């Protein structure tokens, strides 16, 4: 077991920290550890390192450095953006528009605000997971104070028409937030050209450390603080900076956005080999998400008649790390709200498998998965009363 080969295909859940990133972070734990708010020389070096990272993030987004605020990750960024804009604009209105397929960091925040007196419209998506710009425009009212649509979905990989949605938001003068946690490194982003007012990101999705992220806030936008206290982050996000983490985030985003097209071509080729291989070898599958408008490393496929968690356990036994939209895997009671929103029947959603490829995956990895997956699916189907029923009936 100990020396077993691990094939990691869950890059949308988290990534390892890349060597260059670890190296960049290393001096900031025990040597250059000064508090960036202090004034002596080792602290000034810390401050410089934080500002350098801010520049790296800004560059990756086409933003100004003073529009970037470091946070503890994607969830905090989403919470801050949504609560911050909502609470700062209560006198203007109480209506928020988002979608049915957002990450829980957005959905649960919106649900919380509903209890606090806000009204939330959850836009539907089509069978591929796409939000319709026309739907968005129709949903906007005089009291709409925030629109939040994710850039790319973490489960099915669908990429939303953000520039179009942003333009509509801009036309109606409603602040536009996008959760770009899954997009960084996979889609070229330009917050100005795409009319994005707030954007969330999280380092551990692009080979940076866990527990650090950022929120881009367009200059001049009114946003309440989420974490009050010291004067860090130009008085908008209190707390001693996660120095090493921020340095790591900066390095990671620089690397991740240096050659997005090249990265995507490699990953997409591997992904397509895997997807076609699965579809050729296994019957009764459904590809979830959009056939083209999807993250390059994402496969989300449902296998009828079987349940995802048992599939994952068998894959794990082979050293393959993957995830599922089945309720059973998470201990939650409902299967993926994203699959539900695309109209996939519940029983089929239980049999969904998400494989998300990353920079370290190889053709050998793909072929290994193709070697073992059909047998596992067959074994579980053999055991399944649903499959039995179908074949029998």
């Amino acid at each position, binding site marked *: 077991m100990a020396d077993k080969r691990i094939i990691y295909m869950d890059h949308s859940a988290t990534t390892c920290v890349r060597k260059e990133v670890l190296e960049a972070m290393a001096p900031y734990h025990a040597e250059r550890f000064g508090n960036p708010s202090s004034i002596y020389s080792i602290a000034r070096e810390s401050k410089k390192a934080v500002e350098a990272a801010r520049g790296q993030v800004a560059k990756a987004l086409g933003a100004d450095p003073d529009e970037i605020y470091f946070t503890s990750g994607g969830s905090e960024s989403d919470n801050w953006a949504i609560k911050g804009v909502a609470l700062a604009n209560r006198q203007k209105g109480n209506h928020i528009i988002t979608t049915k397929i957002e990450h829980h960091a957005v959905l649960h925040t919106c649900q919380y605000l509903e209890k606090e007196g806000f009204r939330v419209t959850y836009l539907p998506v089509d069978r591929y997971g796409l939000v319709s710009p026309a739907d968005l425009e129709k949903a906007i009212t005089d009291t709409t104070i925030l629109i939040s649509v994710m850039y790319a979905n973490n489960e099915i990989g669908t990429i939303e028409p953000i520039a179009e949605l942003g333009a509509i938001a801009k036309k109606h003068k409603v602040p536009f937030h996008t959760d770009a946690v899954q997009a960084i490194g996979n889609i070229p982003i330009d917050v100005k050209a795409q009319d994005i007012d707030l954007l969330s990101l999280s380092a551990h999705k692009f080979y940076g450390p866990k527990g650090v992220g950022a929120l881009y806030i367009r200059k001049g936008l009114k946003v309440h603080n989420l974490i009050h206290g010291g004067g860090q982050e130009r008085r908008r996000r209190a707390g001693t900076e996660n120095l090493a983490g921020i340095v790591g985030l900066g390095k990671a985003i620089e690397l991740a956005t240096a050659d997005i097209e090249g990265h995507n071509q490699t990953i997409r080729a591997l992904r397509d080999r895997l997807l076609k291989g699965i579809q050729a070898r296994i019957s009764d599958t459904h590809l979830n998400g959009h056939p083209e408008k999807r993250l390059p490393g994402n496969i989300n496929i449902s296998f009828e008649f079987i349940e995802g968690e048992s599939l994952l356990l068998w894959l794990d036994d082979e050293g393959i790390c993957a995830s599922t939209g089945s309720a*059973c895997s998470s201990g939650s009671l409902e299967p993926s709200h994203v699959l539900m929103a695309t109209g996939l029947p*519940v029983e089929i959603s239980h049999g969904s498998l998400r494989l998300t490829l990353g920079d370290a995956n190889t053709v050998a990895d793909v072929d290994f998965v193709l070697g073992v997956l059909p047998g596992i699916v067959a074994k579980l189907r053999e055991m399944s009363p649903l499959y039995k029923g179908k074949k029998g009936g």
Partner: protein
Amino acid sequence: MYSDKVMDHFKNPRNVGEIENPSGVGEVGNPVCGDIMNIYLKIENNIVTDAKFRTFGCGAAIASSSMATELVKGKTLEEAWDLSNKAVAEALDGLPPVKMHCSVLAEEGIHKAINDYRKKQGLEPWVEKNPHAHEHVEGTCGL
């Protein structure tokens, strides 16, 4: 997450399949909840002489089916009826709280199969002593 016992019964499930001309069949669960169990029993002289299952579900569901069918084999009908979901879970060295409903499903499957047999025999079906117990189990689908 799962005990070694659960993993063993998941990876090497005992009694997978069907019994030809079973004495009783219990079908429980719901594909919408992500769990279906079909339990097949062969009953001779009030003794469960064979038990098999087919299950659509998570690791705990498969392991619970495997363990439950193991446990009832060789038992009298009364003993088999008294097999509680807790006994199944304990025999598996425990289940995570959110997975306890899988053991409930196994208990119900056995009960249904027994009553199916009893009905076929023209006997009164036995009444669940504690029919709502599983409603309070964390993680039940609710459908």
